[in-house]
């Protein structure tokens, strides 16, 4: 039975006539069965019609894989209508993962060399959509031939097929690079557009190509100039702007070529200024070109005046009524805020206004930009704006906004009080109650003492605090987490409240608590708290029940440990970026100073240790002598490195020979009892200079010694500027100090070496 096949139109009518989803599916399944039968029978005349129907059905979402082989047959047929549908089917149904797609390679090859433009166009279109790597390699030469043919219809398609091929097989760039220069001379906009895209793709893939194409920058500038200055051209103008698509593509390529390259950027400067000022901004096309221009100005090494122009253009965009333009302006400003911060700051009021937009995309962008613009001078105003935004914004933006406000507050808070106020305003009810409960628990004793630095002190009664926490526990609105916080806070208060913290009093006194004066309540707090806690021992919420039972046990069996367990949290080390930076810079300075002398001295001091006798210990504690600054400087960082305060220990002259005198002065800084600073001063009263003066020291094993760099190694004659050197000795065990010194120098043409122990060290040095 031959069923006359439906035309595509009729099928569509039928599908539209179906009232329900099930009916539609029925119609389609019936039709698919027909189509399958027809494919099996191999009817060549109506094949294209069947495939067209199949494609329609496929678009609606139904499976259509059985049509793949039919596509191949249709492509191979000589009729154009067949080929047309066949190629369309190939584009929609085939993809790289199917094996069938390789079979069309041969057909495409034949079609490409045929010479009929329409057919070639079809083949190129399909190749650029589904071409896999092998296909591209096979057909590359064909496409290259087509690039240079006279017909523009085929050439523009061939250029874009080349783009696809390069994306799939980067090695083919070599084949497609030479024709580009020639193609740029074309006047046909389609070819130009394709060529610019091809060059862009080549430049993005290889830096060598980028260098090669920098040569064509003048040519591109010329093309763009002609576009901008010629008047109304019927062919390509869109709302009065001549071929905005080509302009945008050229600008994008100029951006890639001019990035980080002074020369090219200079050539482009004038042109960019011209485009920026001459483009008609009343319609969207003009604004599109202007937007691309601004992006290009930002990315290349442009003149300062040009950048100012770009920022002003963006400012104008922000004030425009059209939402799209505002969105685009906000996006670009966000990109610029790192590099041109002050310029963007000028537009801050407008950005803040955009926060109030009801549109989701705009408000998200405005939020990001506002957070980036917060600095120490505008933090108060900005936080106020952001807070009002937080109340009215969409739920998905709320999290970002809140965290942004808190981060900004932390970085730029003018006073601590303002910081805390801001945090309080950002927190909504439940989190606020949780934070408050935790604070009351931890710092309850501070709360009850009263006293606050900036406002008048509020006197809070213990009774009120406990009643409040009990209210939180009982309130219907509290989340289980909040109740958990409140319970723990109550427990902590049991150790923090004033008064006798034991449970020796019997419970029936609790009944009288309402009538007793406040001072005798002091002894009843733990019992009261215990009673509240034990109520929750039978609570339905498992978390609360567990807490209550454990706390109760704490009261009952481990009362002696209660205070220790409920102790305050230790303070968190507030590293903070400023403290860390200061520490790091100090480390860097000190490491430079200490590294130089410790390196050579390390080896020499080992010799010294060999000479010293056993009482001093053969091994000094290594950290004192290692070149690495890490260990040694730990001690140094505790204290300032300034010159020592005036000594309270008398100076000592330890050495004298032929006019060279060595004095020791001692300082014990008051903050660190274990540290002793010794300054060794070498003075030369003789007639000849002392050169290559080196002083080394050794101390017993339990001490840490640090030698800093001497002020010089020449002690000038006749009492000239003395050489000083600082010794830092750490004496954690408060052991008696013994010090041995070794001097080497040249004096009167002779080299001298002296080793001696310093005696008569005053007792104050180590006690």
């Amino acid at each position, binding site marked *: 039975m031959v069923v006359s096949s439906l035309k*595509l*139109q009729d099928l*569509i009518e039928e599908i539209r006539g179906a009232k329900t989803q099930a009916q539609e599916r029925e119609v389609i399944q019936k039709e698919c069965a027909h189509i399958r039968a027809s494919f099996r029978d191999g009817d060549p005349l109506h094949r294209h019609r069947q495939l*067209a129907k199949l*494609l*329609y059905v496929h*678009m*609606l*979402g139904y*499976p259509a894989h059985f049509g793949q082989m039919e596509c191949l047959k249709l492509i191979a047929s000589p009729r*154009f*209508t067949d080929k*047309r*549908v066949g190629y*369309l089917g190939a584009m929609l149904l085939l*993809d*790289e993962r199917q094996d069938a797609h390789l079979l069309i390679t041969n057909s495409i090859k034949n079609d490409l060399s045929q010479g009929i433009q*329409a057919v070639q*166009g079809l083949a*190129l*279109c399909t190749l*650029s*959509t589904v071409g896999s790597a092998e296909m591209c390699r096979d057909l590359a030469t064909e496409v290259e031939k087509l690039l240079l043919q006279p017909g523009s*219809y085929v050439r*523009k*398609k061939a250029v*874009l*097929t080349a*783009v*696809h091929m390069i994306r799939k097989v980067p090695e083919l760039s070599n084949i497609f690079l030479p024709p580009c220069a020639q193609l740029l001379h074309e006047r046909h*906009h*389609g070819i130009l*557009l*394709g060529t610019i*895209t091809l060059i862009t793709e080549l430049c993005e893939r290889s830096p060598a190509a980028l260098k090669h194409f920098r040569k064509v920058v003048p040519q591109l500038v010329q093309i763009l100039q002609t576009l901008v200055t010629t008047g109304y051209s019927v*062919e*390509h103008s*869109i709302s009065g702007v001549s*071929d*905005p*698509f080509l302009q*945008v593509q050229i600008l*994008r390529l100029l951006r890639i070529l001019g990035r980080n390259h002074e020369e090219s950027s200079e050539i482009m400067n004038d042109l960019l200024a011209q485009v920026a000022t001459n483009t008609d901004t009343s319609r*969207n096309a003009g*604004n*599109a070109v202007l*937007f*691309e221009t601004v*992006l290009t100005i930002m990315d290349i090494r442009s003149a300062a005046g040009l950048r100012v122009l770009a920022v002003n253009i963006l400012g104008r965009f922000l004030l425009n009524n059209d*939402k*799209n*333009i*505002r*969105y*685009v302006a906000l996006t670009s400003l966000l990109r610029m805020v790192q590099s041109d911060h002050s310029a963007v700051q000028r537009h801050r009021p407008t950005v803040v206004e955009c926060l109030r937009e*009801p*549109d*989701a*995309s705009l408000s*998200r962008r405005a939020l990001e930009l506002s957070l980036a613009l917060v600095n120490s001078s505008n933090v108060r105003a900005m936080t106020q704006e952001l807070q009002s935004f937080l109340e009215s914004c969409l739920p998905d933006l709320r999290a970002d906004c809140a965290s942004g406000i808190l981060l900004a507050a932390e970085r730029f808070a003018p006073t601590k009080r303002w910081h805390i106020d801001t945090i309080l305003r950002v927190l909504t009810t439940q989190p606020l109650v949780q934070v408050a409960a935790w604070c009351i628990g931890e710092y309850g004793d501070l709360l009850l003492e009263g006293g606050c630095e900036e406002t008048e002190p509020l006197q809070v009664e213990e009774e009120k605090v406990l009643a409040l926490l009990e209210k939180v526990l009982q309130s219907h609105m509290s989340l289980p987490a909040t109740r958990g916080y409140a319970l723990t806070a109550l427990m902590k208060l049991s150790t923090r409240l004033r008064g006798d913290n034991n449970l020796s009093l019997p419970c029936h006194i609790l009944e009288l608590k309402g009538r007793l004066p406040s001072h005798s309540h002091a002894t009843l707090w733990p019992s009261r708290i215990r009673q509240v806690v034990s109520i929750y021992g039978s609570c339905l919420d498992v978390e609360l029940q567990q807490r209550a039972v454990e706390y109760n046990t704490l009261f009952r069996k481990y009362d002696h440990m209660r205070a220790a367990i409920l102790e305050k949290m230790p303070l968190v080390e507030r590293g903070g970026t400023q403290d860390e930076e200061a520490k790091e810079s100090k480390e860097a300075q000190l490491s430079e100073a200490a590294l130089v002398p410790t390196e050579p001295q390390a080896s020499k001091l080992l010799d010294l240790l060999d000479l010293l006798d056993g009482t001093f210990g053969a091994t000094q504690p290594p950290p004192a002598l290692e070149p690495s600054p890490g260990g040694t400087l730990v001690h140094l960082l505790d204290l300032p490195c300034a010159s020592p305060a005036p000594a309270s220990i008398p100076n000592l002259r330890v050495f004298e020979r032929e006019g060279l005198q060595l004095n020791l002065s001692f300082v014990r800084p008051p903050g660190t009892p274990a540290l002793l600073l010794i300054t060794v001063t070498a003075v030369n009263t003789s007639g000849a200079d002392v050169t290559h003066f080196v002083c080394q020291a050794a101390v017993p094993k339990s001490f840490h010694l640090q030698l800093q760099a001497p002020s010089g190694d020449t002690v000038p004659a006749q009492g000239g500027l003395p050489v000083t050197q600082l010794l830092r000795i750490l004496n954690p065990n408060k052991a008696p100090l013994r010090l041995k010194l070794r001097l080497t120098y040249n004096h009167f043409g002779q080299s001298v070496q002296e080793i001696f122990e310093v005696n008569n060290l005053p007792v104050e040095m180590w006690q």
Partner: protein
Amino acid sequence: MIKFFLMVNKQGQTRLAKYYEHVEINKRTVLETEVLKSCLFRSNEQCSFIEFKDFKLVCRRYAALLIVVGVNDTENEMAIYEFIHNFVEVLDEYFSRVTELDIMFNLDKVHIILDEMVLNGCIVETNRARILAPLLILDKMSES
């Protein structure tokens, strides 16, 4: 680079779907529904550019049809917005005051027009006369 080009009506039925980057067939319907959800509930006063996963959507509404184009990060959204209008103008000229039904019943011709304008995700031709030339020749051939 353009990733996909969709034309959907208000009830959510796809009238034209062209993908320039491979997406699995079953994932296509999911993608289309999600895209619809973000775009359908926009009024005309709102911004036409939406951020969606890792690419951007540019939507434009024409009476009952919504055209959505998905582009990657490097593309200029406003140029694409203009391109959509260009496409609709071409359709308008070919079909003389195009309606949704025209697109439905002549889907293959619409595909041909789109293929003339966009190749592999890049815009290739925007001149109305040149786009419609091969199509008009084709029509003349099939009539005779």
